[in-house]
């Protein structure tokens, strides 16, 4: 599945509040303590008088419209240069592989962002995704929020379509720093490599939607409970079939509960957070399914064509294999963020550890396989542990950069991951940023790989899969190293 990277700062918020980007962001998308409160307050703070206002008989506000809606245009471009051209995968005819790609745009979005009423606000984004080549619904977050008069208790409800998009810290989830990254933590980008990651990072727009309730006490203790359900783009049927599963690599079965707790302590120019989260998800993976009806038809066809054309396979009732094979994921995470937001200097140190336990459906595991095609997991239970740490520094919000290290390890599963079965990956991101204007950012990034899981890199696949590149035997992870020149802007 392809998860778009969330857009960063949103000028409509600045227009609505009258505050410059630096009120809410160190550098977008990383939030300051003020920015966190603004988001948790449902994006409702406004200093703009209404153009249209209506009230009911009890003087209760029933409509509140400003002169202009909070519309934003966001664009992200990138030019990526790989360490070497990937092997020719043209089948059956040869293709021509180049060592670079130009995403123009990588993403182009239109968004509404801002207050809808005094207690409701929204972020609704429509994005053209350069890799998908199509326009689709991107991140949506609609919030209701209220607080006590003394601001000790703040609470809210969020309806969103991207697990972790609602979060306000940046050590984990959709706004993890580094954010301008061609390598999504969930799956691949345009770079040569893609990387395995926990399902926590993969439940995004077009795949799921959820609703959650949260409370923030004394600007320090945050607690949230959410539940996500599959919400496949392009269909409204409760029936999950092979086609819809194939579209997103799978779907959630029923609701996936998610809990989040975090504690923030601010002093002077400093803000520190430590948090934990847990997700339990029943996931129906995409696989070659055959229903009982298809089985009967196939058996009849096979019986009718005993010799030529018959495949000789006769399915037994035990091999009936409906969509409904369910893998059970449990993701437990710890995250942290330290931020120094001074008059001239900004430091950050943030990251997370996520441990995932994936209990595979008996129907899909080799030893207990009952399906029609072939098993897709070697182990009844797989595990994955992802560790990410990022250090960053910026001067006067103009110059800066970051270094980030990501390492994923897990139980070897040859059927799921190919080759030696290891899901492991390890890479660093080095980034230099030049921000001449706060809504215009130039990015030079170098991603360096030490380990890439076997089936995640074109360079790691076996030679036989590249009939047009017979000499292609070099499977070094470093082949995936990528230079990225990026531009991010919004207005």
């Amino acid at each position, binding site marked *: 599945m392809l998860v778009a990277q969330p857009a960063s700062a949103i000028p409509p918020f*600045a227009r609505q*509040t*009258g*505050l*410059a980007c*630096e*009120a809410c962001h160190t550098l977008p998308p990383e939030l300051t*303590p*003020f920015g966190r*409160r*603004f988001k948790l307050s449902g994006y409702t*703070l*406004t*200093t*703009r*008088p*209404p*153009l*249209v*206002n*209506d*009230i009911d008989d009890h*003087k209760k*506000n029933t*409509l*509140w419209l400003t002169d202009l809606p909070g519309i934003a245009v966001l664009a992200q471009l990138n030019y990526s240069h790989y360490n070497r051209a990937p092997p020719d995968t043209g089948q059956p005819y040869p293709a021509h592989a180049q060592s670079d790609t130009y995403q123009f745009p990588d993403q182009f979005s239109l968004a509404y962002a801002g207050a809808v*009423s*005094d*207690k409701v606000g929204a972020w609704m984004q429509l994005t053209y995704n350069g890799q998908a080549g199509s326009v689709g619904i991107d991140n949506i977050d609609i919030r209701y929020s209220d607080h006590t*008069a*003394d*601001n*000790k208790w703040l609470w809210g409800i969020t309806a969103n379509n991207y697990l972790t998009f609602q979060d306000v810290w940046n050590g984990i989830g959709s706004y993890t720093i580094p954010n301008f990254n061609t390598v999504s933590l969930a799956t691949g980008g345009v770079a040569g490599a893609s990387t395995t990651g926990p399902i926590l990072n993969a439940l995004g727009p077009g795949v799921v939607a959820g609703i959650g309730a949260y409370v923030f006490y004394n*600007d320090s203790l945050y607690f949230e409970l959410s539940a996500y359900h599959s919400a496949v783009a392009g269909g409204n049927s409760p029936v999950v079939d092979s086609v819809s599963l194939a579209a997103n690599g799978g779907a959630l079965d029923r609701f996936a509960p998610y809990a989040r707790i975090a504690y923030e302590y*601010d*002093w*002077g*120019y400093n803000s520190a957070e430590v948090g934990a989260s847990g997700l339990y998800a029943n996931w129906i993976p995409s696989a070659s399914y055959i229903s009982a009806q298809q089985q009967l038809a196939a058996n009849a066809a096979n019986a009718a064509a005993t010799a030529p054309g018959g495949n000789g396979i006769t399915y037994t009732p035990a091999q009936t294999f409906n969509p409904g094979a369910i893998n059970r994921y449990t993701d437990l995470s710890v995250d942290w963020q330290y931020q120094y*937001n*001074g*008059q001239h200097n900004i430091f950050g140190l943030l990251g997370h550890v996520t441990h995932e336990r994936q209990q595979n459906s008996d129907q899909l595991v080799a030893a207990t396989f009952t399906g029609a095609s072939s098993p897709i997991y070697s182990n009844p239970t797989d595990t994955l542990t992802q560790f990410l740490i990022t250090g960053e520094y910026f001067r006067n919000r103009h110059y800066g950069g970051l270094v980030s290290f990501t390492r994923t390890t897990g139980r070897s599963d040859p059927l799921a991951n190919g080759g030696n079965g290891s899901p492991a990956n390890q890479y660093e991101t080095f980034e230099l940023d030049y921000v001449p204007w706060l809504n215009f950012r130039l990015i030079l990034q170098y991603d360096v790989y030490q380990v890439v899981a076997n089936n995640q890199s074109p360079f790691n696949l076996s030679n036989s899969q590249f009939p047009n590149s017979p000499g292609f035997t070099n499977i070094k992870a470093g082949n995936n190293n990528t230079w990225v020149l990026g531009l991010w802007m919004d207005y």
Partner: protein
Amino acid sequence: MDGLLMNKLTKPSILAAAIALACTVGTARPADISLPPDPSVLQGQELVSYACSKCHGVSGNGISISPIFPILAGQQSIYLEEQLKLLRQRYRSDPHARAFMWGISRALTDEQIQSVATYFSSLPPVTGRPSNNPALVAKGKEIYENGVPEPRKVIKCIECHGETSEGTNTVPRLAGQHPGYVALQLHYYRSKLRVNKLMNRNVQNITDDEIAAVTEYISTLTPTPSP
């Protein structure tokens, strides 16, 4: 259709729209048309809770955590009123004034400004914080009380800000203020990013070391109650 529309427009919505329009051109609203969710009619503590508290002390106590934002608890009411008006008319134009307060103050009425200033000035001021650098404090005390002699000539702060820096009228209370905030303002005054003819002249020759010393000293002061 027209009748229905006109009927609706003659009801409170047209009144509210007219008031909203009036507000955008800076006219104060009648006090009896108070719609609580409307920030343009909030007063005093409500307004502080709605907007100011997000940076200047979340519980409304006027004590900011980050030194980017000044502590306002116990600040001189007249000073606050004057500054809010200067910010609203965009006369005060240092970087943080532009980034934060130009927008926040843009739709405030004179009444609101007065009520916010009164609210913050009524809060108990902070007490001075102990310093772990007595030498720096001593140097700061010397500058605060005696200034810097010719030829650089920095006027002594005590002359206007008072013995314990409690301030008066348009002269701000600095006692217990974040040293980082006061230091930044002194830099702004010295470079004329923040314009105040008196302060621009007074600190035009002050050095970075002297700013560090005097702001450290100010942060240790506990002011006497306002006269």
